[in-house]
């Protein structure tokens, strides 16, 4: 992995520049404790971005999140929401303007799913019709059929469904900001993965500014436009894009925290469609030069087998990976199929190029970069 792969996956294009949330010199000292839990923190969250807050347990990341909506009052410092100083406004009013989702979900068990989602709009005095249509809209958004779920009760739902409702409740009054405290932390790995994908899909549609606390580095990397890595006492050790954090940890603490798996994790940030792939030749299409891999295809144009690989005596089994996947997926199928090369196919199953194992460990070239 070299520097050359970083610019295309820098995700600043997904987020604006104006800070939606700004913490200025924020400290929190709990009563009867001499040392602060969070000391002199400055943090700016750009509008429309997902910022994941990560760090070892007890580093104060949840405290920091809860100071943003003043569930925990900072001892010193200022909190700005879209440029407005909200350090001293009414906390309950403030929280109605900020979505909040927690790990334990905390749905109100005595209210129906619809009423749970409608809590904040009702407090804000929306009229009944507007509330009802908003509830249906949100249930659709999180992939639950309103007619099936509106009148059910939380205990009738699975954990994953409950957290979907939790997210819908957070989004109910269309707040510009969402705070999420390990929302998928208590959910089984398979469901978690699906919820993360759905969450990104929802975010594509709603484009909120989101602060997301997690202790799972893969989650932080997958979801975050930026990652804020915290050390003990709420010290912001590094605040950068996932690829930067993985490739260039700011100090020893981050290096240790990111751990030895950093290089592998970075593969999942690298989308195949941004890479310059090796040309392949379809057998029978003529001009079968000896320096390009040759592939035979079936009637529909789908790859069926290797005909020739330059510099290789034994032809490996054919494995494919979709163009929309990541390099991580490519490595996965290569290891799985014991093949040193993988064919990249597009949505229609047509071969678009090849990716070599040697290219991965040597120097990946992204499009538009000189050789």
């Amino acid at each position, binding site marked *: 992995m070299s520097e050359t792969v970083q610019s295309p996956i820098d995700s600043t294009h997904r987020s604006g520049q104006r800070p939606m949330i700004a913490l200025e010199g924020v400290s929190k000292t709990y009563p009867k404790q001499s040392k602060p839990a969070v000391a002199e923190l400055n943090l700016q969250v750009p509008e429309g971005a997902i910022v994941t807050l990560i760090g070892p347990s007890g580093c104060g990341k949840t405290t920091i999140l809860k100071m943003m909506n003043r569930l925990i009052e900072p001892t010193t410092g200022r909190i700005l929401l879209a440029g407005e100083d909200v350090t001293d406004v009414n906390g309950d009013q403030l*929280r109605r303007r900020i979505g*909040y989702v*927690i790990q334990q*979900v*905390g*749905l*109100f068990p005595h209210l*129906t799913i619809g009423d749970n989602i409608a809590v904040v709009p009702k*407090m804000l005095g929306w009229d009944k019709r507007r509330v009802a249509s908003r509830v249906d809209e949100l249930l659709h958004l999180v992939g639950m059929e309103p007619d099936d779920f509106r009148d059910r009760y*939380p205990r009738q739902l699975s954990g994953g469904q409950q957290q979907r409702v939790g997210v819908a409740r957070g989004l109910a009054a269309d707040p510009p900001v969402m705070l999420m405290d390990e929302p998928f932390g208590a959910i089984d790995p398979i469901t978690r993965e699906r919820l993360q994908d759905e969450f990104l899909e929802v975010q594509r549609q709603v484009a909120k500014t989101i602060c997301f606390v997690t202790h799972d580095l893969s989650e932080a990397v997958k979801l975050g436009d930026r990652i804020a890595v915290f050390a003990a006492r709420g010290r912001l050790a590094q605040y950068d894009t996932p690829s930067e954090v993985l490739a260039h940890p700011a100090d020893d603490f981050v290096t240790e925290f990111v751990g030895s798996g950093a290089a592998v994790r970075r593969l999942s940030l690298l989308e195949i469609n941004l890479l310059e792939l090796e040309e392949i030749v379809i057998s029978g299409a003529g001009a079968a030069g000896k320096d390009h891999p040759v592939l035979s295809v079936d009637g529909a144009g789908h790859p069926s087998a290797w005909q020739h690989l330059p510099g290789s005596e034994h032809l490996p089994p054919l494995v494919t990976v979709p163009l929309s996947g990541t390099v991580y997926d490519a490595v996965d199928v290569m290891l799985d199929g014991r093949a040193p090369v993988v064919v990249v196919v597009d949505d229609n199953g047509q071969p678009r190029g090849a990716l070599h194992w040697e290219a991965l460990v040597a120097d990946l070239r992204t499009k538009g970069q000189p050789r």
Partner: protein
Amino acid sequence: MESYLRYLSENSTELIFYAQQHFLLVGYSVGLASVIALALALLLHTNQLTPPSWRRSLRVGGRETSLLLASAALTIPSLALFGILQPLLGLGVTPSIVALTLYAIYPVLRNTLAGLSSVDPAVLEAARGVGMGPVRRMLRVQLPLAWPVIISGIRVAVLIVISIAVVAAIINGPGFGKPLQDGLARLGAVNSFNEVITGTLGCLVVAACYEIVFVVVRRLTTPRGIRV
């Protein structure tokens, strides 16, 4: 047996009157006790009604003190309590209701406090996180969720008070205490045993009526989402 049935039919008007009195005496006392206990518990449990610096100590202290007083009231021998109240409040209905209310507070208070603190902290945190103030949080979330526990406390109070209420007869109180004590006083005389049996069975009938009331009330007041 035949003579007892004849006794019942000859005295039916009077017995129905006793039953009504007993039912209402228990109802007023437990009702009053529930209002007092609920008000106390809500006051102690709703954050931010008290200054922040002594909020916690006040809540814990207030909670323990009120439970201690209420349980002390329950341990006073009923005979003595009615006797003590007599010089202050005289005879009849008023001192009976006051005494029985004192007995009923403890079970209601105990269950109300237990119910309110058994509410899932995550639910309360979510309530705070979506911007509910302390009063709204109590009335819209915590109280409805604690309600099944509270109502079972009220039911226990009713059962206790039904049997204690017969002692009210010593200060001329209403209810089945009167035939029971008359009968016990003249045991061996005509109909005396019938009166004792009637007083006892009467309490059971009143208790059965209340059980029916509670089934209906619990059904109607428990939110569907938390019904078991």
